[in-house]
């Protein structure tokens, strides 16, 4: 039987005028879920699920070899269909983001590959992909300068800001922004925006996402602790 919550006028008004909160949907992950890879992670943010695997430092093709640092390769596979330019752009962003995080100079002339498989896209897909990729790199124990956390936020028609939006919210939003922060100085690593917004809205979203990113970093720490402390 369904249950109802009755809100008074006063409570409704308070709800509408409440400041935006730095909330994330429920995060669950499974590290080392696949056995043949150097590192693997399956991450769910709410219902959006992404599986990422990492290899490296491994052999690199001569054409892509760099003499001073590792070559970072990212492949993004959508759930259905062949990769299209939209997916190439995602790969480009994820690769550039991970390249600044990975300590490439420690492994010149080698390749660090990350393969990301979209399992379910129900909002904030790009953010979930970047977070899963970071977890996969942590699982593979690749040397990193810092960890990266991505958080998406949506600006609705009435000006309300929602962090880590679901797909239904994203579709109705006026603008969607994905921010990626690093864990040392909390500076901005990447940003991707869709839709129109004012400078003020940009700043509010950015600060809210930065706050939310701290929860993601805490989640990484917790996940790795669970994995490492089970070894004796």
């Amino acid at each position, binding site marked *: 039987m369904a249950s109802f919550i009755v809100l008074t006028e006063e409570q409704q008004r308070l709800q509408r005028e409440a400041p935006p909160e730095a909330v994330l949907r429920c995060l669950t992950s499974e590290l080392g879920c696949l056995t043949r890879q150097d590192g693997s992670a399956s991450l769910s943010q709410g219902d959006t699920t992404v599986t990422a695997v990492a290899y490296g430092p*491994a052999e690199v093709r001569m054409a892509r070899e760099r003499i001073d640092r590792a070559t970072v390769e990212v492949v993004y596979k959508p759930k259905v269909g062949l990769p299209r330019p939209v997916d190439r752009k995602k790969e480009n962003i994820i690769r550039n983001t991970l390249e600044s995080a990975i300590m490439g100079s420690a492994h010149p002339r080698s390749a660090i590959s990350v393969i990301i498989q979209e399992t379910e896209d129900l909002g904030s897909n790009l953010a979930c992909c970047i977070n899963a990729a970071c977890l996969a790199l942590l699982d593979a124990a690749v*040397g990193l300068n810092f960890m990266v956390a991505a958080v998406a936020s949506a600006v609705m028609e009435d000006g309300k800001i929602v962090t880590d939006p679901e797909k239904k919210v994203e579709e109705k939003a006026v603008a969607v922004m994905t921010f990626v922060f690093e864990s040392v100085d909390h500076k901005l690593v990447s940003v991707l925006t869709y839709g129109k917004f004012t400078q003020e809205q940009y700043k509010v979203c950015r600060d809210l996402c930065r706050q939310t990113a701290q929860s993601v970093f805490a989640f990484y720490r917790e996940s790795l602790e669970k994995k490492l402390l089970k070894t004796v």
Partner: protein
Amino acid sequence: MADKRVGNVFMPGDVLEDLQVSESVKKIVLGPGLIDDGNRIKISKPGILRFREPGIYWIDCHQKRYVPSKGDSVIGIITQKAGDIFRVDIGGSEQASLSYLSFEGATKRNRPDVKVGDIVYAKLLVANKDMEPEVVCIDSYGRSSGMGVIRNGGFLFNASLNLVRKLLSPQCALVKSLGHRFQFELAVGLNGRVWAKSKSDIQTIAMANGIMASEFMDNNQIKAMCKRLSRAVSGMEVE
């Protein structure tokens, strides 16, 4: 005297300030996972901080991919014969080179009997990020001391780097427990490769499974597992 943070989990980007060291020691040695960044120590890999006397700190991380390091003993697979050298796959980002003269008793006239596909137990002579790794099957006195081609069958399998280090550690009861119950030969490479050979195929496979399963077990669980294993094997053996 170890720092009180030893045993804690650290993540990449974390900073260790004022790392403690005992009064008698002037130098701290930073092992894998720790980077000296000017006046602070940064962590580059996720793992548990460990300490060993006199002043060595390192991050113990869970890794499957081997990065060649000088002095490691590894198990390699010969993939190619190119003139005077063999190309050996040691599991790193580059294949290592092994000169045919790096075997005991090898001379220009007396070439060693090594074919493509053979497994060798070798030591890393040259291993750094800028150069191609080089392995040898003799020590500095010219003796093989256990190294060389591993012949006569057996089973080669991959394990994580933590598991091989655990196998080689004196505190681990695995090798001893297995030794009470099975007759075997075991070669452990620090590159995550283990070669095992026992009296029969069933025993070899049982041993390999036992080793793989012991990754997250403590000594008591290992002893119990070995007992169950030997019982299961004797039930399966057909004389």
